């Protein structure tokens, strides 16, 4: 009887440890880690900043033209 329970205990421990490792592997969610690791994501950020700053410069130029007209009239 004692031998039997020891066997079960071992089995349960094995099962539990198996579950633990399974759980450690489970929440592996795919993210763009490689992209950030080799730094290339910064290129995208830089390009977006350039585009946005371009739009802002365009807005500033329209703003200035309007101001000029407002002063004239």
């Amino acid at each position, binding site marked *: 009887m004692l031998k039997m329970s020891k066997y079960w205990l071992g089995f349960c421990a094995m099962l539990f440890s198996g579950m633990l490792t399974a759980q450690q592997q489970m*929440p592996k*969610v*795919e*993210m*763009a880690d490689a992209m*950030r690791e080799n730094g290339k*994501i*910064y290129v*995208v*950020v830089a390009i*977006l*900043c350039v585009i*946005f*700053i371009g739009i*802002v410069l365009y*807005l500033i130029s*329209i*703003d200035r033209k*309007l101001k000029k*007209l*407002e002063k004239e*009239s």
Partner: protein
Amino acid sequence: MIKHWWKALGVLLVIYTIVLGFIGEVPRLPILNETIRNLYFHVTMWFTMVILMTASLVYSVKYLRNGDLTSDLKGKELAVSGFFMASLGLITGSLWARFTWGTFWTNDPKLNGTAVTLLIYLAYFVLRGSVDDPQKRGRLSAVYNIFAYVMMIVFIGILPRLTDSLHPGNGGNPGFGGYDLDGTMRVVFYPAVIGWTLIALWITNLKIRYQKLLWKKDA
């Protein structure tokens, strides 16, 4: 230069959003993956729209009280900018849905509600275009604008929350606040809302000044 500070602030906040929106840490969730970053760009469009429509409502009420056509003009241009931001929100939402829900459009109360809201505001512009007398146009459209605002709140704020919806933050779904436990997304999201709102206000400001110049020319 001093009175342009809010434009500069808007530009800085949007640049902050673009940089941290891509480089910052975000919660790792299946299906969403990196698209969770759309929170900084898609959701901010809608927040901006609601803020601009609220401002538009304020100017409409102001017009009804004082009959000043400048208030009417401000109300209209704010609504145009709000409509523009909402259109961007709708297109980006549709694109996001394609890669997370698997379809560009589905008969979801949130999606249909936003579409109806856009149509309601479209009717506001049609109404404005169909009346020639400026004061009459101002009064009619101001009253309609109040109605439109209430409908917007009902269609995008209330109805989707009462039924089942795929959209986060509706029908019992948690919003992004539910995933963002340590607040890393909040520090990008709220500045993003302010930044985009200021940019939209700047564009609105340019259009109002343009229209005022046209008035001067005609007078």
